[in-house]
């Protein structure tokens, strides 16, 4: 059944074309159902391929199947095919991408109800799903890049979907510019790999002899630049908090569950070329991002902003895992995170929907009574992300912390940073749950919150179920229960093995659970029972994300956004005047050379003459050498 692979991306593409042609005629809710059925069909096709793959022998290396469509790009000695690679890694990614994606499609039917661009929204969603599947299934770097650009484009479209809002249009632009930095890293890495190994096909790369240490590290770091752009790591994370301007299902699907994890996927896919030096860098950046973003999340008031910083922080965990060599742990966390973060985002969407587009948590409170399903599922997501056993997040986070502990150079330090992050995560998520669902009612009397429709609550319940039991795919209790690890094993060059004894493992797990409980307790004491004064817990410094965005704005004249209103006041002259992100720096340079374009022929003639003299001088100089 592995041969059905072409069907997996074909169905969302078909959905896209259908909606393009007849979407506006079908309207609401028909076009939503077309898209949802396309996504669901794609999930079923993925399941079929998965079953087919399981039928093959894992140890004999049979579980790697290439499906070549046609030869795409012959450039010199380079041959690039348009083809898919089905192996344990890509199928694992595809299963949750299509699975979670289908649920979010379904949810969106309810969420986007009444939007004038209803069918266009689903058109983008299907296009996104198609691009994401190209990214995951591509059998070489160029096809992956195609998907990489595709998901990027859809992400900008969807962020600025409500582009009547100035802030949304600006956020879309910011995502575009920041991501181009990452794309640049991807392109150079691709060409560098090709010039070093003579191929860009994954199976050939992983069978190639190692590159020289310097080249290998350079390539690894370039790939990390690409991954850091897409997966919002320091210092390229700035676009992700702003991306929350998009509709909430988009935040759940694109900016939490799927697209932002493609950086993790890329690095895991390329694990054979990553060098130890580069891994150390990745681990440090990952840990720093995890801690930094968790600190920022502590002081946010916008219900989605908390989740956005939380996503950045959790992505930091994944990179910490990669940097520690624990690729399975990274993928494990990608999956569990997809479950609980999609759940949390969709839950927050349900709240926003029920509260009539209110996003400030200070104006919520005591919603559990009026929105019981949303509240219940949200609490499941909260326990999962806070690392409370036996919810899914506990198992994957625990494995990452163990891997960090065992990291060769600075293991205990990385572990400690991860632990503090875990404490903060438990704290800010508890704060959110309390502010939204418990405590006293802070909304006006004329607001009438209500529970959402079944198309929205069904995905919530299913995702909540996954967030409870998702950890079961890789339980460390008995060796045979490490299903994911055994399944993914053929992918890795140097399979990672934990060396710590059982006692250490248990001790670390207990410490991380205790840290989580401390975080939860602080939140309860301060926000529910008000025993701890809360005003000091939200320093302005953190609320403004440590002024990183503002600093960028100062250094390169970047964009501030309305979401960072304080920052805007902080330096309104720079922020208001600029629209172009990094462009400002380039503009400065351009204005410097602008006078050469004077409009006078005599100046142009002088330009030509100077150029001619320069060329003659250069050639003559070449002769002298």
């Amino acid at each position, binding site marked *: 059944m592995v041969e059905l692979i072409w069907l997996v991306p074909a169905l969302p593409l078909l959905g896209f074309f259908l909606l393009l042609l007849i979407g506006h005629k079908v309207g609401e809710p028909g076009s939503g159902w077309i898209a949802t059925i396309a996504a669901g069909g794609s999930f079923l096709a993925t399941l079929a391929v998965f079953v087919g793959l399981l039928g093959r022998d894992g140890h004999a290396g049979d579980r790697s199947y290439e499906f070549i469509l046609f030869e795409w*790009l012959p450039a010199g000695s380079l041959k690039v095919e348009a083809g898919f690679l089905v192996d344990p890694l890509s199928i694992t990614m595809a299963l949750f991408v299509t699975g979670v994606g289908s649920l979010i499609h379904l949810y969106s039917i309810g969420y986007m109800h009444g939007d004038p661009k209803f069918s266009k929204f689903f058109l983008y969603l299907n296009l996104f799903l198609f691009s994401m599947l190209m990214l995951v299934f591509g059998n070489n770097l160029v096809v992956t890049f195609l998907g990489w650009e595709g998901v990027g484009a859809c992400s900008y479209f969807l962020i600025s979907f409500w582009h009547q809002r100035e802030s949304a*249009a600006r956020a879309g632009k910011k995502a*575009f510019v920041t991501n181009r930095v990452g794309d640049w890293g991807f*392109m150079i890495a691709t060409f560098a790999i090709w*010039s070093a190994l003579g191929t860009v096909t994954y199976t050939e790369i992983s069978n190639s002899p190692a590159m020289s240490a310097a080249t290998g590290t350079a390539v690894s770091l370039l790939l990390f630049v690409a991954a850091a752009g897409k997966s919002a790591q320091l210092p390229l994370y700035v676009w992700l908090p702003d991306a929350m301007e998009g509709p909430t299902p988009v935040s759940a699907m694109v900016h939490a569950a799927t697209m932002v994890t493609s950086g993790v996927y890329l690095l895991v896919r390329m694990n054979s070329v990553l060098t130890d030096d580069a891994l150390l860098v990745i681990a440090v950046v990952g840990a720093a991002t995890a801690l930094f973003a968790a600190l920022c999340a502590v002081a946010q008031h916008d219900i989605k902003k908390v989740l956005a910083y939380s996503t950045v922080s959790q992505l930091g965990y994944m990179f910490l895992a990669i940097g520690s060599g624990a690729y399975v742990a990274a993928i494990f966390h990608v999956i569990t995170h997809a479950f609980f973060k999609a759940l949390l985002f969709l839950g927050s969407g349900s709240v926003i929907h029920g509260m009539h587009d209110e996003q400030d948590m200070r104006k919520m409170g005591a919603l559990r009574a009026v929105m019981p399903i949303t509240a219940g599922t949200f609490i499941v997501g909260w326990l999962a992300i806070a690392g409370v056993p036996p919810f899914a997040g506990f198992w994957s986070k625990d494995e990452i912390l163990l891997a960090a502990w065992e990291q060769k150079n600075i293991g205990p330090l990385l572990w400690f940073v991860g632990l503090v992050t875990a404490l903060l995560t438990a704290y800010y998520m508890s704060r959110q749950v309390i502010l939204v669902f418990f405590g006293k009612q802070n909304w006006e009397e004329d607001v009438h919150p209500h529970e959402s429709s079944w198309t929205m609550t069904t995905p919530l319940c299913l995702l909540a179920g996954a967030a409870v039991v998702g950890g079961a795919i890789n339980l460390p209790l008995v060796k045979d229960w490490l299903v994911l690890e055994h399944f993914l094993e053929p992918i890795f060059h140097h399979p990672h093995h934990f060396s710590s004894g059982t006692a250490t493992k248990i001790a670390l797990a207990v410490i991380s659970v205790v840290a989580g409980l401390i975080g939860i307790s602080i939140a309860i004491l301060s926000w529910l029972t008000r025993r701890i004064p809360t005003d000091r817990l939200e320093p302005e410094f953190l609320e403004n994300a440590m002024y990183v965005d503002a600093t960028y704005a100062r250094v390169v004249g970047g964009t501030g956004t309305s979401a960072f209103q304080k920052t805007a006041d902080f330096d309104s002259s720079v922020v208001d005047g600029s629209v172009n992100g990094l462009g400002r720096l380039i503009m400065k340079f351009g204005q410097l050379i602008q006078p050469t374009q004077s409009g006078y022929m005599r100046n142009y003639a002088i330009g*030509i003459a100077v150029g001619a003299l*320069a060329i003659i001088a250069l050639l*003559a100089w070449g002769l002298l050498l």
Partner: protein
Amino acid sequence: MGSLQLVGFVGPSVNWWALLPQIILLGAALAVLLVSALAPQRASTVFTTVTTLCAALTSFVVALGLWSDVKADGPSSSIASAFGVDGFSIFFTVLILIGLATTALLSHGYLDREEMDPPEFHALLLCSAAGAIVMASANDLIVMFLGLEALSIGIYVMIAMHHRRSEARESAIKYFVLGAFSSAFLLYGIALTYGATGSTNLVHIRSYLDAVVFQDQHLLMAAMALLLVGLSFKVAAAPFHFWAPDVYQGAPSPVTGWMASIAKAAGFAALLRIFFAAFASHDVDWAPIVGALAVITLVIGSVMAILQTDIKRMLAFSSVSHAGYVLVAVHSASATGTSAALFYLFTYTLMVLGSFAIVGAMGPDDEHPLSRYTGLGRSRPVIAIGFTVLLLAQAGIPTTSGFIAKFQVIAAAVESESYFIAGVSMVTAVIGAFMYLRIVMAMYVVDEGEEGPRPIWHWTTSVVVLAAVGFTIIVGLVPQFLIEFARDAVPVLVRG
């Protein structure tokens, strides 16, 4: 008894068949002029457009015939090796004819709207096209120069023909004076080449340079430098690009398209034939200079583009940066690089013609502020999508021909181990993408209730835009045929 012997002049053998494409074009130009002089009432816009299209088509068929000859018998040259017939010349002939047909279609609606005289315009366009073909096929520097002048003089007049607009006249004068200035460099370069190698024929120059080791290379180096200056002007490479934004802005839009695509392509044809083919043995000398030009051109083109507020000036600087990419390919001085350059020029020509088709149809040629495009996505969704595709293709977004073109260029740079230049081209691609995005955003991001523009749209323009967009996407998905065509079109110098 001594007798007076008459020594008859024996001219070189002429392969008329090989000259037929240009002859057809010139014949059509004469026919258009004759009809307009003798039967003015007959010389309608329709008549001239159809004549030009027929000429282009016939010429195209002949070019295909020549192509099968070259495939069967190999490249050849005629008129004492002055005129080459190889894959390279046919590649450019095909490209120029496509450009000719496109420009004729675009001018169809344009000339009527702007009240310009069709017969003169078409006659000049046909002559200009013939000149471009000569330039791309010439194996002799003098013949190449003649082609270049024929190409340019046609353009000077076509720009100035828009007599009601003083900007058009200003453009024409600027282009003419600066063009003459740069022609002087080129001519001087030709003279010095003759001094250094004893010939103006590229076949002779090539074999001479292969056989001789110079003790003193200064003369040859100066010749190369001056040739490079002259041709860099034609392709609008920095720092010889200053004219481009001013002239592009002032010229009638179809002429701007013609200049940005075909004049540039012909300039690169000459550049490749001279430097890659004839000066091949001295690539260590010229390649670094071309590389430096490429870097400057890329940076200036992309940076200046985002400063502009006028669409035509934006596209002018973007065409400067495109010249930079082709120079990157030329710089690699390899067959891979040359076919990458050819592929780039072919795809770029279609993109830029399509873009200027839209620009020209958007309204009168006074100025083209970005704000004119606000809301086009709502009022004319099909046109907006077409323009978006063409712009994204210029930015090098995957699934368009622009991506494949940039990919090949950078691959050529990597293959010749010019990592710095490859890096610069990728960075400028990032900067450039921003400018294209600005136009796209302008079309789609509008306030609620604001009405977009509703330009009057001639059907010939739609045909051109549709063809350009279709080509751009098809080549983006299945580029194989064009890649092979470009690979077979690497210039070959053979004695005829």
